[in-house]
């Protein structure tokens, strides 16, 4: 057991100071702005909870929230089923292991605003490899004006970007399972599905919840990639929560932008809190 020593806080001072400066102070500021109407930095007027009431009663906010939730649900469904499946295959085919893991890591190091540019060029009907193939096959792909196609492009692009994270984490979780578990399952004559359900899945709970919290918050707050693809269009069909916020900031509506920021932060915080509770409950049951 680790010794108890409050002097250990001295080790935390440098990081706590930086986090206070770049995290706490801006958070307090944004909380303060959210109760003001801000014309400029010197002209701010107290408006109470007006912005919050406006957001809570706005049809647009509810629509964006709905779209963001659906987007997160879809990318999580796609990326987790594909990711778990690939990781399971990798654990059985060690020959491709390093190559696949390194391959899947490449999209993670691409600057975020480059990803939509790459994909838009890929589906460009004049110069893109996929765009020209669609053209030749007579498949009409119109991400600009057909909402379904915009959604498809966003989901495929996001999967390209983040599939590696899910595979890498699940694979790491799988390699941490002691071989004795598999031997015991083999003696019991367990099928592959039973092994997955009763041996692998319970041992993957930790890494899966990690991947889930990271994938949820990032997809729920998708901004750079989605904005570049179609700026929230067509007709607002891909206007997610963060795109509304970006629009407020670009339109200099700082008061309502701040209120929106507070609401989004609280949503993300709630997700992190649930993750913490779940993790602690699991650790408690393992001890």
């Amino acid at each position, binding site marked *: 057991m*680790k010794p*108890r020593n*409050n002097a*250990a*806080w001295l*080790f*935390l001072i*440098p*990081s706590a100071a930086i*986090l206070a*400066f*770049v995290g706490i*102070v*801006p*958070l307090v*500021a*944004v909380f303060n702005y959210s109760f003001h109407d801000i014309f400029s*930095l010197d002209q701010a007027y107290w408006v109470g909870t007006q912005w919050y009431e406006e957001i809570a009663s706005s049809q647009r906010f509810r629509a964006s929230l709905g779209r963001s939730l659906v987007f997160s649900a879809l990318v999580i469904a796609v990326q987790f089923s594909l990711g778990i499946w*690939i990781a399971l*295959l990798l654990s*059985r*085919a060690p020959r491709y292991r390093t*190559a696949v893991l*390194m*391959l*899947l890591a*490449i999209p993670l*190091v*691409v*600057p*975020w*605003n*480059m990803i939509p540019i*790459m*994909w838009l*060029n*890929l589906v460009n009907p004049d*110069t*893109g490899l*996929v765009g020209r193939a669609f053209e030749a096959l007579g498949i009409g792909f119109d991400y600009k004006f057909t909402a379904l196609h915009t959604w498809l492009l966003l989901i495929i692009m996001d999967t390209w970007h983040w599939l590696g*994270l899910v595979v*890498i*984490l699940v*694979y*790491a979780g799988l390699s941490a399972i002691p071989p004795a578990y*598999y031997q015991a399952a083999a003696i019991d004559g367990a099928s592959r599905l039973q*092994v997955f359900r009763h041996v692998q899945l319970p041992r993957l709970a930790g890494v899966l919840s*990690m991947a889930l919290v990271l994938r949820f*918050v990032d997809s729920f707050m998708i*901004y*750079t990639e989605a904005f570049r693809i179609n700026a929230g269009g067509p007709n607002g069909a891909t206007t997610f929560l963060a795109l509304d*916020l*970006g629009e407020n*900031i670009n339109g200099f509506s*700082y008061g309502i*932008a701040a209120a929106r*920021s507070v609401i989004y*932060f609280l949503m*993300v915080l709630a997700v*992190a809190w649930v993750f913490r509770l779940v993790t602690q409950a699991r650790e408690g049951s393992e001890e």
Partner: protein
Amino acid sequence: MKAAGPIAGFVGFALLAAFVLLPLAQTLLLSFLSTLPREGIPEGQPTLLNYRNIVAMPALREAIVNSIIYALLNVLLCLAVGLPAAYAFSRYRFVGDRHFFFLLLAFRVTPPVVLSLPVFILFAKFGLVNSPVGIALAHCLFNIPITIWILESFISAIPRELDETAFLDGHTLPGFFVKHLVPAIAPGIGVAAFFCFIFSWVEVVIARILTVTAGKPITMAINALFGFQTDIGLVMAMTVVSLVPGVAMIWFVRNHISRGFVVRA
């Protein structure tokens, strides 16, 4: 367990590789084509012109240097403040340790767009706008948590006896950190450095809002290339350049890559 058939395995691997490599191949292809009508070079002709243009354009050269500077500065900052914090979490329990851990999680998952505005106003007051120091500092928000999590797991793998013998040998605390702890967790330092560098390198929202007139990062330099007549070949060449450090570093951390996505609560 029965191994998947070698042919099925190969086909699956090829499909996956095609999916991942297709956008990259497209980017690489366009980066070697002349994509604007130019005198003497027909459109669509293979050329090295785009890469030569990067070298010839000061704005692009400077952007590459700017990005490297703030990403490296961020790595140094995160390691310098993250190492003692990780040591404290690894070796001691103290009042508020779990709350601090939750704070790290909260900052790791806070979307940068939520804080972009107040961070800009705050940094403007301290003269940190348009400077790589500002971006390096702002990126600590999500990189300090990652550093602490990674280093804590590496330090916890080292027995306490290392600390105790070092102190018995008369090492001071800084001496112990530099001479014993850092060499013992060298791979962990490398892994943490890799992830700080990468997450700082790919971040766009904060890097954009903190560079108004100067100090533009590589991502913004690429955005600035879009206009009335976009030279997409040049854009793609710049994108290829922006991929080089990350792809090169993946090789070095290939066995530790899962550590960067570890989340603690």
